[in-house]
């Protein structure tokens, strides 16, 4: 009886809904036990998720979805509750389930009032994020994508710092602008599917088969890219991030940095490239994205270097790291994509750990200003060691997780865009320029302030939080092979789809015709309603050529 329902049948649903069960349990628990209950539930989810590592088999299915299950949700519109896991989402899901219990454990001392509501929102957030990474139906994905906003809005707004309300509303509105335009794009795809495929569907697999003209692809790419770029965030959409990170309570910053930002880059990999391959390869688009990525890397590093506030400094490093992800992705090479994915993982671990460490410093000294510290290495050697290792992993020292990702991303970029790679590489130098002085000023200068003398070293709970993170940073950095081999088939499949799907024929065709790659999208006003609309379709993939000419 038991073997009839195997692990691979229920695990995705369990990962998605168990946090909600935990939420209900938290609400039924007295406030003083809320944190342990929430921690146990998130730990349970993590323990269950470990099995995914083996349940997902990179050797079968050419990198497609595994553990898939589909049930109709809103049948009249063809919306289905369908989940699946591939070599990209595997890491995102595990990163989420791994970070969540640590973030909850890290908030035990920080969150003092309204604990029930806080832990309930953390669990709700976890459900939303796991849903984003598992959904294989676009409307379902959108629902979870938006659902994550509400708990984060309240986490920042209720438990945050002084300017928490400003930060919360800015975070909410910024990300909402992008995602609502994406909703229009999703509905447009749905409408085209109804016309061209003859079926109402939001299913990812079906929409991949949808023939789209280059013009349509560029518009839709714009809508999706805006949503994800704000989430990532890519320069110049990053201004919400420092506010949100700085004002959020420690656990909020941890999940923001470690998980929430990944929803954007995950969206690039999962939806943007495969759905709109011709637009993704369009030289102008690639140039814009790579440029923004490089600007993000260099600009954020320079801004980070002058921050007096350590938390803000770390917040800006996120923008820089995400720049590496973006150039890795839009280099459109296997190395680049793998590197981008790897930076996502290592940034999740190292920046999550940095925010936890800053939270620990804040609990001890109630300040985040770098100049208030100094010489902490003498009074808190374990804290200093942990911080230094994490900081070095964050800037990509060889032997740590950060190195593998950035190296691969740069390598992959160099293969197609050497100049971009050269500029981006300076970012690694700038990273040392912001991180090392901070480490020095906090831990190694003179112990010249009285308040710092009494700083305690790590408690046992804090060691339990940091040990797995630091271990992972080093293990991944030294032996990345198991990670790479699990992501490779899916990344390969993604690349093939971008280069060889019927929708990418457009650009290749243009090249063959010798029209050059400068063919800009032509926006033909359509008079059907008196207003320009996105464009008409013919009835086969290569017809898009006409639209280009």
């Amino acid at each position: 009886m038991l073997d009839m329902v195997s692990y691979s049948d229920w695990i995705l649903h369990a990962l998605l809904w168990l946090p909600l069960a935990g939420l209900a349990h938290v609400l039924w628990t007295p406030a003083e036990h809320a944190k342990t209950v929430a921690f146990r539930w998130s730990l349970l989810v993590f323990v269950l998720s470990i099995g995914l590592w083996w349940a997902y088999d990179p050797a079968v299915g050419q990198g497609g979805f595994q553990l898939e299950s589909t049930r109709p949700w809103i049948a009249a519109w063809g919306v289905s509750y369908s989940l699946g896991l591939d070599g990209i989402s595997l890491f995102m899901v595990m990163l989420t389930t791994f970070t969540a219990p640590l973030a909850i454990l890290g908030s035990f001392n920080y969150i003092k009032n309204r604990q029930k509501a806080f832990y309930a929102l953390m669990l709700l957030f976890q459900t939303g994020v796991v849903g984003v990474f598992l959904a294989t139906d676009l409307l379902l994905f959108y629902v979870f994508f938006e659902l994550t906003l509400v708990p984060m809005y309240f986490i920042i707004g209720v438990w945050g710092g002084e300017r928490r309300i400003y930060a919360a509303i800015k975070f909410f509105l910024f990300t909402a602008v992008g995602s609502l335009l994406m909703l229009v794009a999703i509905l447009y795809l749905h409408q085209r599917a109804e016309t061209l495929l003859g079926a109402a569907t939001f299913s990812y697999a079906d929409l991949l088969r949808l023939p789209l003209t280059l013009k349509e692809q560029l518009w839709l790419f714009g809508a999706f890219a805006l949503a994800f770029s704000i989430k990532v965030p890519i320069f110049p959409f990053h201004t919400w991030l420092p506010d949100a990170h700085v004002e959020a309570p420690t656990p909020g910053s941890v999940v923001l940095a470690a998980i929430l930002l990944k929803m954007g880059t995950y969206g690039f990999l999962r939806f943007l490239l495969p759905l709109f391959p011709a637009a993704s390869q369009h030289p102008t688009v690639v140039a814009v994205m790579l440029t923004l990525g490089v600007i993000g890397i260099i600009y954020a590093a320079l801004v980070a270097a002058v921050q007096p506030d350590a938390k803000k400094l770390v917040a800006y490093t996120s923008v820089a790291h995400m720049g590496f992800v973006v150039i890795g992705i839009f280099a459109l090479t296997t190395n680049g994509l793998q590197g981008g994915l790897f930076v996502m993982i290592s940034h999740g671990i190292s920046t999550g750990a940095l925010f936890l460490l800053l939270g620990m410093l804040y609990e001890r000294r109630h300040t985040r200003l770098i100049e208030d510290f100094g010489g902490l290495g003498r009074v808190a050697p374990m804290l200093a060691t942990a911080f230094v290792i994490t900081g070095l992993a964050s800037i990509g020292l060889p032997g740590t997780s950060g190195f593998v990702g950035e190296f691969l991303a740069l390598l992959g970029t160099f293969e197609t865009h050497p100049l971009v790679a050269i500029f981006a590489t300076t970012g690694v130098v700038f990273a040392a320029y912001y991180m090392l002085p901070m480490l020095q000023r906090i831990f190694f200068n003179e112990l010249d302030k009285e308040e710092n003398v009494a700083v305690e070293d790590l408690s046992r709970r804090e060691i339990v939080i940091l040990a797995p993170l630091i271990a992972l940073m080093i293990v991944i950095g030294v032996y990345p092979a198991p990670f790479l081999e699990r992501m490779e088939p899916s990344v390969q499949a993604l690349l093939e789809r971008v280069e060889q799907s019927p929708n990418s024929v457009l650009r290749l065709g243009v090249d063959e015709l010798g029209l050059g790659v400068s063919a800009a999208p032509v926006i033909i006003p359509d008079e059907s309603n008196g207003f320009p609309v996105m464009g008409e379709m013919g009835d086969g993939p290569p017809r898009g050529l006409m639209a280009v000419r």
Partner: protein
Amino acid sequence: MTMHLDFSSQGHYLIALLPELVLSAWAMVVLVAGVSKRMHTSPDRVTDLGWLSLLGILVAALANGWLYGVTEVGSSAMVAVDGFRLYANWILLTAAGMSVMVSIGYVEKQKLQAGEFYGLLLLSTVGMMFMVSARDLIVIFLGLEVMSIAVYAMTAMNRRDRKSAEAGLKYFLLGAFSTGFFLYGIALTYGAAGSTNIAAIAAAIGDGSAHTGLLGFGVALLAIGFAFKVSAVPFHMWTPDVYEGAPTPVTAFMSAGVKAAAFVAFLRVFSIAFDGVYAQWWAIIWWLAVLSMVGANLIALVQVNVKRMLAYSSIAHAGYLLLAIVSNNGTATAGLLFYLFVYTFMNIGALAIVMTVGGQAERNQRIDDYAGLGWRQPMLGIFMTIFLLSLAGFPGTGGFIGKIFLLQGAMDANLVYLSTILVLTTVLSYWYYLRVAWFMWMCEAPDADAHVGLAVPVPLRLALIVGVAVVLYTGIFPGSALELAQAAAESLTSGGFLLLGAL
């Protein structure tokens, strides 16, 4: 056995209008009961009148359900018996029922004349039901007047409140003005098409016998008349003052019921009677929609009074719903019905909480009066948050499904720009809906006894629970409500097709 109505005898109208007749008779009973038993002296009796009205609404709902077993022959009678009307009736009866439930505590506390209040509420519902069932402009007009006059009186019902009287007068004057437009529109349309019957107008337009110039003016004037009633910008001037000044339960009733009835009649007239001249009128509605969405959402941003903010939000929602009229297709029609259904629950729910925070009176309506409400009264806070998220169209709520529905209709009609404007203005609306949430949860209460011991009357509590349940259920499992709306929308157009076939 299904009953067939061909309207060959007058008796068939009695059957077709059964819910309306039941409710009219019940309204008389409530009125008489209100004066005969000295209801105003005993609070219990006042409450009983409320429950009595609710019972009447339930009986009318049963009659409405029974009508599903009745089929009409042809579709040119003055009264329609189609799924479209019956679904609209559900919305109106729900709006009336929810309004009665949230009124009971308020009417008692404010010592309003209960018999008149509930009697007028039921009569006004009858007017609305006539509007949605009518296939004749004259019947729509009669329904409109029955509805409006009753609502004017209800708006001015609180004689101890100056704002209520002011709102009543304003509503009456502007309403009378708009009625003039409406009536003139009917007259011109009659002049052009030779009939006030919707089917006959459609036929006259179809075979080219209608006078184009006259018809154009008629359509434009009717559009203005409807735009007044659904409060679309720039015909919305009365809305904020009336919504703010009227007793809050009346605001709740107006914002849900009046709007629903006007929109349903609007859609029937424009998509059936004037379908042939779509090319002439779509741009008018397109602009009304844009102005309503942009204007109302912008003005709502700066409101400090929650009730007034909800008034502007209601204008913005009129803008979203106008998308359905411009789209002029089955999906959009179904979307309109579904949206109005959900809107009834979320808007009445939100106003019921405004009422509760105000202590069943017109107090504490400023947004900073909500500071700390969430932590002092968690259930009220959570409910209000859910209603606001639904009004904002957030996933997981019925408001989201409704918005998607409207957007799908617009996509089918290739209205990509209008859809984009809708979502961008939705972002504006996030600001003012979330602002209430931030005061409730992120600000501390001004003093120790704020929000302590708020009375939540049992019927109002019931309405809140029903409201939240429906908003969440239609957001998470929208399937059945959605399919019902689609079937209702199909019945509207299939009737139209039958007619064309017959001619």
